[in-house]
């Protein structure tokens, strides 16, 4: 049996956490993601850029009440990638699950 390779972009703790958080919401901002992932701002920012460059998430930057606000939402591509990733994980863990 050929087992699919795990998506390297998602097979990282922080990026997977970001995508999983965005799965259940329409949109979340930077501070919400920071609070729930407990990551540093710098690291979170880098991982958001990587996911955005891959088209997995959409990033919107705006000014709300004189403060900059970055909000992220999962794209259809990101949703599909996560579904494929979970399917691949299940294949890997097939016997155990």
């Amino acid at each position, binding site marked *: 049996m050929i087992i699919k390779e*795990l998506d390297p972009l998602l*097979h*990282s*703790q*922080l*990026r*997977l*956490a970001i995508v*999983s*958080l965005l*799965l*259940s*919401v*329409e*949109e*979340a*901002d930077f*501070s*919400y993601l920071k*609070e*729930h*992932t*407990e*990551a540093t701002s710098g*690291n979170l920012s*880098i*991982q958001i850029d990587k996911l955005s460059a891959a088209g997995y998430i959409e990033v919107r930057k705006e000014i*709300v*009440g004189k*403060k900059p*606000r970055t909000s992220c939402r999962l794209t259809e591509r990101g949703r599909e990638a*996560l579904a494929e*990733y*979970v399917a691949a*994980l299940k294949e*890997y*863990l097939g016997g*155990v699950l």
Partner: protein
Amino acid sequence: MKDKKINERESLELISEMISRTKQGIAMKQDYNRFLLYGYAVVIVALVLWLLIRVTGDGRFMFGWFALFLPYLWHMVADSRKEKHVVTYVQSMVENVWKVIGSLFGLTILALLCVGWGMGRIDFALMMPLSLIYAGIGMAMTGLVIRESGFVWTPLVGLGVAAYMLVASPVNDWNLLFGASFLVFMVIPVHVARNKVK
């Protein structure tokens, strides 16, 4: 949390942990304040106008209903200042439902103005039963989205009252009936729903 590789089992655990964290956080976040703001504003305006018209007999007090634009403006300003860290599908769905209902209110005012202007007499009386129907539909749709059965069925009272207004009731009683309907299908169900969350 860092940018580190994890094994397959940890991945699955992380996904389910993040999903459940989001769900726990947002379950409590349904914002009922705006319903209470509009609900109580309608009840208070209805009572005041009913009393004023009853005491003075002056029907021009009916223009007092335009005071309901004040909570709308207040809500718009407060909303633009509020920091929203997360928007759920449910919140955005409820917001869109009320955008449609709000547009119906706006279009109806515009239509009554245009028709009234053409006929030489502007009469906003129809706004009251129509508003009961629109707001009732909005509450019922909100109830379906957030799965709150009190929101879904109580607007039937508003629909019944709207029909009664159009068929049988004298116009000054409309104020009281209107306020009482909002109390039944907006204020009370919202308090019940809020108490469930507490």
